[in-house]
């Protein structure tokens, strides 16, 4: 008999996990958000150069050749097709898969809660998440801009910083990665100096990200003369828990971003990914104005049960 057959999560944690899923489903039902479950396998994949898809292959009945598919890295594209088709507000709890991610806070397979609210902007969605957090364990949440966090812990405005300043600061703090683009330097600085301080007492939402980190969020001209992405993240105990967007609905801009990401992949020696034409079709038809968020359920459970590693909350 294999010695280590026991699951890494205790029965107590298993119960906490079931309770969490139950509370989320009750919360969504109470708000009129419908549960959906979209396919995990797709011929299209995520072009984001920082996210690697897991590939799967299968054979259709009678076929000679195997079909190569990708396991989803998030159910975002499939859910946006439902939204464009008039589903109204929806949510999903599912497993997502990401190659090359493993560590105390990372696993190549993890559970995600993804939800979309039609007619919401980023702050209205943060309001709703705050209500959910209140029901779970956290009576209060805080909110601050990316810029204010950066200014407090690094001493300068990230939106107006010269590239030389970012790289000099990064090198000071132990960045040994050599020449790096603006977004990589911001990732390093934010994760090194800002994120560990966020959510130590109350969960903290960080909003208005630099435009170069927009991902699938809309970019607006900020009041102070630089563009910001209407994107937010949630931090608890320094841990990134959720990432949300005021969703980009412009099909042309979405196509440009996909292409730009594939060019970046090519430049970095990564495989280009097949662009999801069905998503672009849905955006061309028209995605309703909406905000969406992806929340890592394993990490949320880590915070709820004070677990030190993601392995301890995985069944």
């Amino acid at each position, binding site marked *: 008999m294999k010695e280590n057959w026991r699951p890494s999560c205790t029965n107590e944690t298993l119960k906490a996990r079931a309770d969490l899923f139950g509370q989320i489903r009750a919360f969504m039902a109470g708000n009129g958000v419908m549960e959906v479950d979209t396919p995990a396998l797709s011929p299209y994949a995520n072009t984001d150069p*920082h996210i690697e898809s897991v590939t799967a292959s299968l054979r259709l009945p009678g076929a000679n050749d195997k079909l190569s598919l990708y396991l989803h890295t998030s159910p975002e594209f499939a859910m946006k097709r439902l939204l464009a088709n008039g589903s109204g507000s929806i949510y999903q709890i599912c497993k997502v898969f990401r190659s090359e991610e*493993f560590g105390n806070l990372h696993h190549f397979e993890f559970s995600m809660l993804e939800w979309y609210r039609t007619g919401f902007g980023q702050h209205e969605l943060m309001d709703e998440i705050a209500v959910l957090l209140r029901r779970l364990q956290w009576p209060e949440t805080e909110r601050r801009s990316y810029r204010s966090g950066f200014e407090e812990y690094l001493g300068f405005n990230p939106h107006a910083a010269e590239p030389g300043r970012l790289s000099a600061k990064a090198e000071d703090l*132990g960045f*040994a990665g050599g020449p*790096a683009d603006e977004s990589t330097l911001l990732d*390093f600085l934010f*994760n090194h100096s800002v994120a560990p301080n966020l959510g130590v007492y109350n969960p903290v939402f960080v909003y208005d990200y630099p435009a170069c980190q927009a*991902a699938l969020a809309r970019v607006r001209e900020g009041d102070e003369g630089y563009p910001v992405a209407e994107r937010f993240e949630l931090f608890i105990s320094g841990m990134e828990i959720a*990432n949300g967007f005021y969703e980009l609905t412009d099909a042309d801009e979405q196509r440009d971003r996909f292409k730009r990401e594939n060019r970046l992949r090519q430049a970095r020696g990564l495989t280009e990914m097949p662009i999801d034409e069905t998503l672009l079709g849905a955006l061309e038809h028209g995605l309703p104005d909406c905000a969406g968020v992806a929340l890592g359920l394993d990490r949320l459970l880590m915070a709820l049960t004070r677990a030190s590693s993601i392995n301890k909350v995985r069944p």
Partner: protein
Amino acid sequence: MTTYSTNEFRNGLKLMLDGDPCSIIDNEFVKPGKGQAFNRVKIRNLKTGRVLEKTYKSGESVEAADVVGIELQYLYNDGEMWYFMDTSSYEQVVADKTTMDDAGQWLTGEEVCEVTLWNGVPLSVLPPNFVELKITETDPGLKGDTATGGAKPATLETGVIVKVPLFVEQDEIIKVDTRTAQYVSRVKD
């Protein structure tokens, strides 16, 4: 030039950093959901002993340091240099005072030491954990006083001074733990 990818990072791996050989003592994978993945490592500079925190982009390659640990027999010193021999190849290795640090104060000859070599040159020398050395000078012993727990200084044959219990006599051989520089026991002839 040998290189390691960040995927190969693990504790004890030897890397070059700013021209110095270093050893990884902690390696953490850090990645924002929508951003660049990093390996945040704690790394010890093997020349200075200082511990630094460095962050590499995941997937990057880093130059390997040719650092090996081997067991060498101590032969003698001439006050400036310390001479060791590989007992299988009879090759000699020479370490200077800085490299020896405190290791020399425990050695009389023939001890097998753990020597760390970088490109064939010693970086550090570890004496055996326990050595047996003769006391060349100490105050007269208090016979039968094995209970009070008092201690007195004793000079050993290599010149190093350690604290010994009051009952221990001059010319006796004692066993010392070199990691703590503490007396362990008397050695009966």
